[in-house]
């Protein structure tokens, strides 16, 4: 810990003319995929191609909430494994990911919401994930700052309490995985832009980058919000994705006030307290596709209005910083994981919306297996693109939707 500082993810290297595997995008999913390809499958001749710097996109812009209380049985096991991996990765990477398993409290504001929560909770419990339906008073015991009176817009009926969830230091995950991958020989090329994927006879042959052409037989595009545009632009594959800017913000730092992640669907709002003491909050999206990454006046005001109702003590706190990131939304709030479908050797991992952070470790692990074996692991089978053609959306949202881009 006091030794001389060394570059965490290795010295800068010159891009080679060929790699076994090229991963486009230096975000969490590719870093995790690279790490597991090297660790579990002995594939180490890997180049990660990143246009900016690692963690530039969603990896560094999310609010670091992790949980495994998804609605369907297709999703829960994947997120459960991701949740279980945080302590494991901290140890394996020898890098403190600062997992604070403080639990998530999802507020319910109507009888109908309580019913919907029961399905989710039962699904969690059925899969061995701890999650409970509690009433308003119990919620108040967990979060004394909650306003459980009737005089707010959406009075609190109860909550879904999911103790094993919490928050992880997002930057630490980026840097830790980069360190772990680099130690095993993976090359991370920052400030290098992928420009094209070359194919021949239905097979991937190369990747053209701003630093030269790479010959390769396997390419994975997982570039967060930029994935769908890249995949369409490079290979002409259109996806059922809308890219929206999602915003988050923090208040000035406070001594411990919120001991759990608190969220509310009706208020379109979540809040948690970081280890530094800031209240991190967000959720709303402007429902039109854009790549601006810009924050809006509308949203920060909305957020204040919402928080002042159900956590009224926060009226006395100041917002300090708001930022935007991209969310690639699918119509059913579930990702698209595909391989060897359109082209042999071409893989994609995208459509995570705002769930990309919490899923990165397990998704990376199974994507690595998929690429190393060319065989889709059972865990990833439900996430094939085919489901949209079959009119079998995942059912991750209970609500009826008519496909507005933000669901």
């Amino acid at each position, binding site marked *: *810990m006091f030794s001389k*500082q*060394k*570059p*965490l993810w290795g010295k800068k290297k010159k891009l080679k003319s060929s790699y076994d595997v090229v991963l486009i995008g230096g975000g969490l999913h590719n870093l995790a995929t690279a790490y597991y390809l090297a660790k579990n499958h002995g594939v180490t001749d890997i180049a990660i191609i990143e246009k900016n*710097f690692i*963690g530039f996109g969603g990896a560094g812009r999310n609010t670091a909430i992790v949980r495994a209380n998804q609605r*369907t049985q297709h999703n829960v096991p994947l997120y459960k494994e991701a949740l279980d991996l945080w302590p494991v990765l*901290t140890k394996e990477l*020898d*890098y*403190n990911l600062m*997992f604070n398993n403080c639990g998530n409290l999802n507020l319910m504001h*109507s*009888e*109908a919401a*309580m*019913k*919907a*929560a*029961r*399905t989710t909770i*039962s*699904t969690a419990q059925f899969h061995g994930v701890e999650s*409970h339906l509690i009433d308003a008073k119990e919620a108040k015991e967990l979060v*004394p700052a909650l306003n459980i009176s009737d005089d707010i*817009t*959406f009075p609190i009926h109860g909550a879904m309490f999911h103790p094993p969830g919490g928050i992880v230091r997002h930057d630490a995950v980026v840097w830790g995985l980069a360190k772990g991958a680099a130690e095993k020989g993976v090359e991370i090329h920052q400030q290098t832009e992928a420009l094209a994927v070359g194919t021949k006879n239905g097979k991937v042959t190369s990747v053209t980058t701003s630093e030269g052409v790479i010959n390769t037989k396997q390419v994975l595009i997982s570039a967060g919000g930029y994935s769908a545009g890249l995949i369409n632009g490079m290979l002409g594959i259109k996806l059922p994705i809308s890219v929206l800017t999602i915003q988050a913000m923090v208040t*000035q*730092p*406070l*001594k*411990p006030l919120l001991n759990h992640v608190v969220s509310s669907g009706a208020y379109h709002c979540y809040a948690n307290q970081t*280890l*530094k*003491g800031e209240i991190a909050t967000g959720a709303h999206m402007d429902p039109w596709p854009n790549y601006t990454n*810009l*924050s*809006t*006046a509308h949203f*920060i*005001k909305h957020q*204040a*209005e919402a928080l*002042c*109702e159900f956590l009224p*003590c*926060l*009226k*006395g*706190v*100041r*917002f300090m*910083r708001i*930022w935007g990131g991209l969310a690639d939304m699918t119509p059913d709030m579930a990702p698209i994981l595909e391989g060897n479908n359109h082209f042999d050797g071409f893989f994609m991992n995208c459509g995570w919306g705002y769930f990309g952070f919490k899923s990165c470790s397990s998704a990376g692990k199974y994507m690595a297996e998929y690429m190393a074996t060319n065989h889709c692991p059972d865990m990833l089978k439900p996430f094939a693109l085919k489901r949209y053609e*079959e009119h*079998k*959306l995942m059912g991750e949202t*209970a609500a009826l939707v*008519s496909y507005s881009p933000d669901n």
Partner: protein
Amino acid sequence: MMNRLNNLATLQIDSSRKISFIFRGKRYYGLEGDTIATALYSNGIRIFARSLKYHRPRGLYSLDGECSNTCMEVDGIPNVRCENTLLKDAMEIKEQNVKGSLENDKMSVIDKMDWMMPAGFYYNTMHKPAKIWPIAMKQIRKVAGLGTLSPDFKMTGKYDEIFPTTDVCVIGGGPAGMSAALSAAGKGLRVILLESRPVLGGFFEYRLKEYKEGQSFHERARELAAQVEEAENIRVFTHASMIGAYNNNLITGFQIGRESDCFDERYIEIRAQSVIVATGCIERPLLFENNERPGIMQTGCALRMAHTYGLLPGKEAVFSIGHDLGLETAISLYDLGLKISCVADIRREGQDSELVAQLRERNIELLKGSVATMAHGAKQVNKVTIATVNGTASQDYNCDLLVASAGLTPVTSAITVVRGRLKYDDHTGYFLPDQMPEKMHATGRVLGLDNALAIESSGRLAGLQAAFDCKACSIAEIGEAENELEKLPGPTQGTKLVIAPVKGRKSFICFDEDTTIKNINQAIDKGFDVPELIKRFTSAGTGPGQGGIPGHNLPLYVAQYQKLPSISIRSTTVRPPIVPTLLSTYAGTNHAMFKRTPMDEMQREDGGVFRNIGVWQRARYFSNDFSCKAEIENVRSNVGILDGSTLGKFRISGPDAVKALERVFVSDMSKIKEGRVKYSAMCNDDGCVIDDGIIVKQGENDFYFTTSTGRAGSTIEWIRYHTRYDGWDFHMVNLTDSMGVINLSGPNARKVLEKIVDIDISNEAFGFSEYREFKIKDTISVRAMRLGFVGELSYELHVPSSYMKSVWLMLNEAGKEFNIRNFGVEAQNVLRMEKCHIILGQESEQRTNLLDVGLGFLWDRNKPKAKTVGAVALRQAESDQTRLKLVGFKMENSGRAPRDGSLIVDEKVRGYICTARDSFTLKEGVGMALVEGDLTKIGTRLEIYEDECGDDRIYGKVVQMPLYDPEGTRMKM
């Protein structure tokens, strides 16, 4: 209490008006016009806070809230920046983030342990063995954070919001901003001027130096301010900070109210046609060892302490500065009685000769090419080491005040948050606007100007540029103004020194986060090579001061350490809010707004328990028995009345109305007969059913139809969307709010209704599934339908909203003899569930298509020309047996009904319970569930998994639907 300076024209305090306040439980006094910090300073307080990590003592450094050095708790609100918060009577002020007191903070021992805490040390520690992490985390949380907020804290005060529009918005009420406002207003435009301090004037306001013969800068500021205040079309907001700028010229800010205002703070959102950025400069902090010791302050702070607040900030001072404002400040303060040991100027040359002469006149030693390298003194500065900038020679000077400032830096946040671009300018050493956002203009010191006349001239130019955006000014006029500006002096050269010749172990680049130069070096060595990454790794610039302290120095230092050319220096990202803003200010006046039906008041009087349902408030129950037994039994055996006004109600008419209906409804809409009710559904393009309702024909090409409550707001949008390419001629009106709906249900419904209507409503004359229009008392026109949602004889009466109450009262009067009573939404929910009538969203979800819920009979597959929304998908999914399908079920062995939302399982999840109740009517537990195709056969056993059930399961079996009155005789009687 310190004596105040008197007779200064610039003073903003009123020495005749004392204000009392409580600090740490003791009463103190300040003066009207004081900020909390200046009042405390006048009472001898020098340590205002302890730093975040090392608990180092922190003092007054700036007066504009550029760092957290003066953050305290005021009236229960944490992290209040005392240096620019005006003192108010009876304020209660407390220190924060200390163990002990500000003077003796037990946590300050951490300051000696910095060697244990290199940048990002926490990533490499506290995780081995894993079990220490939870304990460490608790401690981290306790020591992190600044102020404390009670979960019971109740905000007092009034918070408001306004949304003005204007032609031109000027940000900054200094000389450039005022000149700009005046020139734009002179073109007849409406102007809004925002100034963050309580008075206009900017950096002219507090200076007594000569502006021109016979007029001081202060007097010039007052002159301009008077003109601005006189101008009818300039709306001035003082004490109003800009907090956000967005493209299309949306500017947000907030204003702090005066005693006479009706608000304490108000949110301001301004839509302008053109924006002028006249935000001036702040000072660039000087980097040296212990550069944030109490007793060290910036030049503007020192000067304003004296000139604005009448407080001489020390007895004996050393100056270490890099610009002429520093020299001017030294002279001004000397003349007010401050002893000055020496003035070290980073610049070897280039000083204003007149200022140098004035220093000489006063025998103040000027050390050119020198800089402070270290401040001494444990809690307050008592000695300063001054060295040559190359570090070759040094000398110590005793002092109790060190005025330190490396240079100036333009405030460009309003430009960069809208993605304007800055460029590092070698001449000034500033980041200057390179590419301005559309219809935004920078002026004054933001452009690097420092000559007073040039600043004003550039303001006038900006005003004309904004006028040009508003088409109120010609190119020629702008050309003239440009010529005028060109004749005046341009920007002067700025200092290049980034850091004093020191190693930087305790040279703080960011005060808020306790980030030292050494931490930055460590981060770069670890591979974090761009400022944005360094910020993330070291937290520099992420504290309450919004990057005011490190904003300029960080990119300069990073470039210097990496030996990069100055062309590659990029400014760091700034994010809104530019000034930390209270949530209560952002929230403003926040009203809960729900729609209420015409029957709202009466139903409340009748004991209705209301719930939010979408945009409406509706009566869900009429007693505290939420099983609704009495309400349900009354409908089954007698007659009940329900307010159904929230239903979506529409009229569609015109030659292509039928085509439009055919497009969105799955049924054949060409065969709707007059006098009949048609029930149908709408799907989305995946065949998923999104709405159901009834359609009646009112005349040729003229239909009235209903939608579910939730879809009322988007139905016109939906129909117009799916016909947007067709150019069809039809018209739609949303009648949801203009029509109310009364549902009269139960075997006695006819007996009640016939008492108030004139027409024959016998079963023969007005049968099931029929539609009639009639008038009550020749006045109230009613559209009546025989429906059976709850499974009993029912009349649905659609009545103009304004007559709803009358009809409701008549029915209640008529029903008195039968003991008619209200029933609410939950009773209706149970009643219709027994009848297996679905509610979309309850018996369906995102994945459920029309066929899955058993409504396939509504679908007319023989109208491909209609291109009905959902038809393609229904056809494609028709034979798919793996979908979730709706079934009815009863519990085994007279068991209780499962809770809604429980799962149907075997080894996997196979479905879930939609609605289930212990039915009073059927005397058993019944319900509906969505289950996988192979579980739909009658008699199939359903294994039900409830939350918290452990290993226990309950079982039901699939039965024929409907559960109640399968022949439908009751609703047809």
